[in-house]
Structure formats: C-alpha cells, structure tokens
C-alpha cells in the first residue's frame, strides 16, 4: 500500500492507540468533527475511533506540553503536537526544562515517554511559520530527535517514538506530508512509500544511505534530503558520484554511518534548511573533523539558509532555501577545488 507521510503517520498513530490505551494525542484542532485533523491532516478522523483520547486543546502551547509531561509521568504515552514547529518556542520551558530534565533530576527514577510532533519548513508563510527548529533542540540533553523524510520512515519512527520510554521530538516537513484536500501544499515533494503490512519499526539512532556514491558524502534530512538526491541525480551525468545519507535521527547521531561514508569519499557536505549559524550542520561537521580529519580531501562544507529569518517574497524564499541546483553547484565547486 502506497501512502504519503500524513497518511502513514495517521495509520501509525491509529495503530499505536489501538494497541495501547495509554497512548493519546493532544493538540490544537486535531480532532474537531468537520475540522482539519491538525494543521496538516495527520490526525484526521482519529477522533471517530478514539474520542476520549484525541484531546483538542485551547491555543495554549505551554498547556499542551505541560499536559503531555504530567500525563506521561502518570504512565500515559502522549503524542503532543504543534501546528507549526515555530510554536515550540511558546512551550520551550516545558520541553527543555521539564520534559527533557525531569528524569535526570529525579536520579533516573522517572520516565517521560512523550512524543512531540512539529512540522517545519519554509513554505510561503513568512518568518514566523517557517523555522526549522532542529538546531534549538540539538543543544538539549534528554530529548531524542527524529526527522523522517519518507512515509516508510515516518511510520516506523513514529512507532519507535511512541514505544520509547524517553521523550522523542519528531520534526516533519510541510512539503513532504502529501496532505490532501484543502490542506494540500503547493511545492510538495513526493515522499510516499510502499508500506508493508507488518508492524515494522525504524530504530531511533540509525541513519540510512539513500544513495551510494564515491566522491562526496551529502548529509541531509527532510526536504533537503530529497533536494540532495535531486542534486546527486544531476551530478551523476557529469561524472560526480554522491553518496546521500539521511540521518533520520538527529540526536543521537549515527556517527558510525557518517564516518564510514566519509572515510570512503573523503568529502562531506551537510545540507540544511535552517540558517547556517549554530545549525545541525555545525555539530555534524565538527564531529567529522574531530574524528577523522585525516580522511578529508576537502574542507567540511555546509550548505544552509542565510543567517537571516525567512523572507516571505517567493522570489527571495527560493534563494533562501537551498535548492537542488545550489547544492549541485557547491558539490561541483568542491570537486573542482579539491
């Protein structure tokens, strides 16, 4: 069965809720009859089967993550979401100070099985609905961060996240959901997968080689993973062979997979949709340099958005987000120079 990410997540959540009555969803507009099923249709219709466990909330992000935290402490397994990842900023204390820290502060006695879902991506809505907040959470011990780029991974990682006893923050991309109907997004990239019948999971902490190659290792998540694959495709014709790695989990990083690839190619490029400053690319890049500097034929390279907020103008937005052509250009330059 072929599903898009929104559908795959919906099915995965449905399954987890059916399997374990401690699982519940909480968020804004997630289960209103006649409504949207959250901002991107992920929970559409789930309220029909699980009315008591699809909790529609006021517009209260502190409340949503506080509720998730408290319920998890009492043995529930909440799936909390924000309509746009940006709104995590409104709940930052609950996420970073409470959800992430309580177990450690308790001397390891508590468990915090919270799943947090956050759509990211620069998608024609201006600066406050565009942020890719991954970097903000890379600095936060106590949270596992996943970022599925395909429906297969979305389903498998969602299941792993729900079953995990630690907090897991899942970043999803607006242009990869494949949301339908009135919630369809323009500029969508196909991230659908053939979904097996069985109850598979994708392990947290394991990346995947999306495309094998010899010359350059490109590391990218979510939309940037797809754009990197497109760039790799373009470059193939020119005789440049790119290996594309999708980390899938941003924390803990699958460093082994990354180092193995870079040992082979000798060149590493990290592509990210957020501003370069203090980005995920910095952490990945520096880890490569710490571990295997001698394998590097070229300096570690980051391709990222400029160090500015996202502009609204579609013309500028296109320059802001790294496009396949820009990624390819940077690879070309890397190959020419080194």
């Amino acid at each position: 069965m072929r599903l898009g990410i929104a559908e795959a997540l919906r099915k995965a959540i449905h399954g987890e809720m059916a399997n374990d009555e401690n699982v519940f969803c909480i968020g804004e507009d997630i289960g209103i009859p006649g409504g949207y099923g959250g901002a991107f249709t992920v929970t559409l219709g789930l309220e029909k089967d699980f009315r008591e466990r699809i909790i529609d909330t006021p517009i209260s992000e502190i409340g949503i993550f506080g509720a998730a935290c408290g319920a998890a402490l009492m043995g529930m397994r909440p799936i909390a979401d924000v309509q746009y990842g940006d709104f995590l900023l409104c709940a930052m204390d609950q996420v970073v100070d409470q959800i992430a820290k309580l177990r450690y502060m308790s001397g390891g006695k508590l468990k915090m099985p919270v799943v947090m879902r956050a759509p990211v991506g620069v998608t024609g809505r201006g600066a406050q609905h565009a942020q890719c907040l991954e970097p903000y959470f890379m600095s936060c011990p106590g949270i596992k961060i996943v970022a599925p780029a395909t429906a297969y991974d979305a389903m498998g990682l969602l299941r792993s996240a729900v079953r995990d006893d630690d907090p897991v923050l899942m970043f999803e991309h607006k242009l990869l959901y494949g949301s339908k109907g009135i919630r369809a997004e323009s500029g969508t990239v196909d991230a659908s997968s053939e979904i097996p019948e069985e109850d598979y999971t994708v392990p947290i902490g394991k990346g995947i080689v999306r495309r094998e190659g010899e010359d350059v290792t490109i590391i990218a998540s979510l939309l940037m993973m797809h754009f990197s694959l497109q760039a790799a495709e373009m470059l193939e014709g020119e005789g440049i062979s790119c290996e594309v790695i999708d980390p899938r989990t941003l924390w803990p990083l699958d460093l082994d997979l990354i180092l193995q690839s870079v040992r082979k190619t000798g060149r590493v490029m990290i592509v990210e949709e957020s501003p370069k400053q203090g980005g995920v690319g910095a952490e990945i890049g520096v880890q490569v340099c710490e571990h295997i500097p001698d394998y590097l034929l070229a300096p570690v390279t980051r391709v990222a958005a400029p160090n500015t907020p996202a502009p609204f103008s579609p013309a500028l937005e296109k320059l802001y987000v790294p496009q396949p052509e820009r990624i390819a250009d940077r690879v070309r330059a890397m190959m020419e120079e080194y």
Partner: protein
Amino acid sequence: MKHNEMMKSLGKEALEGMLRRMLEIRQFEEKIRFLFLEGKMPGTVHQYIGMEACAVGVCTALEEDDVIASTHRPHGHAIARGISMDSIMGELYGKTTGCCGGKGGSMHVGDLSKGMLPAIAIVGGNLPIVMGMGLAFKIRKEPRVAVSFFGDGASNEGAFHEALNMASVYGVPALFVCENNRYGASTSVKRVMRIEHVADRAAAYGMRGDRADGMDVLDVYAHAREAVSLARKGEGPTLLELETFRLCGHSRRDPNNYMTQEEKEHWQKRDPIPFFEKLLREGKYMTEKEIADLKEAVELSVVQAIESGQQSPEPDPEVLFEGLYVNMEVPR
C-alpha cells in the same frame, strides 16, 4: 448612545469614510479570495470577511499618533488603519512595493510609520508588545494609545495573561480588543473556555472589561472611543470584547465544515455591511445611489491595487541579506 445620536455626532463625512473602509476590506478580501482559489497568489491568507465593523469601529476612534498591532488575520486592520491597499497588496505578492518590502507577507502586513506594527502571526504574541508600547507612552508621558487586536483563541495563551496583568499593574494607555468570532481555527470557543465572555477575564487583572456588538460599527466605535479616551486620560487599559463572526473560512480554502448551518445563517443575517448601509440610508446620510457609487469606486481601487501588486517588481536577490541588523552585515 443610540445610533441616531452617534451618527449625528460623527457626521456624514466620517460615516461615509467608515463605510468606505468596510467596503474596501470586503472587496479586498473577496477579490484575493478568488485569486487564491485560482492559485494566482502566493502564500496563505486569513481573511476578515464579516468582521469589518471591528477594525473600522476601533480605528475610527484613534488618533494619528496611536499604534495598533494585529494578528495572522491583519488585512482588515491594515485597511482600517489607512494603510494603502496598494502597499498591502504589494506585500501579499511579495513585491518591493509591499508595506514590508515583500519580506513580511500576508500575516505580517503593517507599517509603523502609519500607526500599525507589522502584524504578529504568533497567536497572543502581540499583546505583550502592545503592553510595552503602552509602557513607553506612560514613561514618556505621551498622550498616545496602543491597541492590540486579537482573537478569542488568543485569550487562552499565557502571553494574554502576562500582558494584561502587567498592563493593569502599570496602568498603561492600551486597549486590548478581543475579536470574539466564536472560533479559533476550527475550534469553537465553547470547547476551550468555560466562561461566556472573554471580557470577564479583565476582572482577574483588576482591569476594566467591556463588550460591544462587533457586527455594528457604531457600537464598536462608541465603546472603543470610551476606552481610548480613558486610556489617554491616564485611567488605564480596557479589555474590550467584540462579538463577531467570520463569514469566511479560517484560512484559504477552509469550507467551515465545523460550523453548524444554523450558526452560519444566523450570523450571515448579521453581516455588518448591509446593516450599516441600512442605518446610513435610513438616517439619510447616504442614498442608495451614493452607496452604489461608493462600491464601484472601491471596487476600482481594489482592482488597481491588484494590478499594482501583480506588476510591481520583485525584490533584488541582495535584499535577502538586508534589513536584519542596523549597523552590521549579515555574517555569511
């Protein structure tokens, strides 16, 4: 005050101006709604159809020096505040002529030099800022008023609470206008608060609370005027709730399936524009013909704004790196 007295005190010119603004908002929103459905506009959009009396009633009560702040649904506030439709439309198209030079987009229209902060699209996000603007006026003893527009949904945000409490504590000259349109996105107020009136929350801060009919521009104006005048006199802020309704989707393409048919019909009958037109006709402030002419003129100006928006130039690529810091280049 009765409608008649109110109209008398406002006078023909002002009344006509109010109707014009309301018609501008309606036409503007109707036309871009169509452009959106046709896929001819970028981005997304939250429209103000049905709520025109709120923005126009409040803004009519303001002075040039006052400042308003808005939300994800700001077109109506911008037009009511007198920001040119060309520059709003330019912004929606992301063009250099936009009031934010194309950097903001639909959810951030505004122009502080015209008395409107670029809109804040984080629900509840503008309230603390408006409190701060009021604080500045208070510290500097300026006779200015800061106005926040926000929704029923926003009144459940922590930002609402902190902002209103501080505004009350400092007695800042501010007006917090809650446009209670019964829904936050698809969520009915009944699902998310156990009280009838947002205005009743004012009591929690020892603040003045008030309510007006958000479908009646004159009632809105009367209550806003009182609140603004108290604020300007140093008598502190007001939480003013306007009872209104969206006669359109929450955002582009939303068919409002979460609303009941009954409810939609009830509010459709309360459309603020025909209501105000009727008052104007009955009070002999405007004739049928004058209104029709005004509509035509307004329509023309909206069509021109659209053309201007479409034909204006895109920002230069270098603009991407401009306007972040005042005295420093963006590090690359």
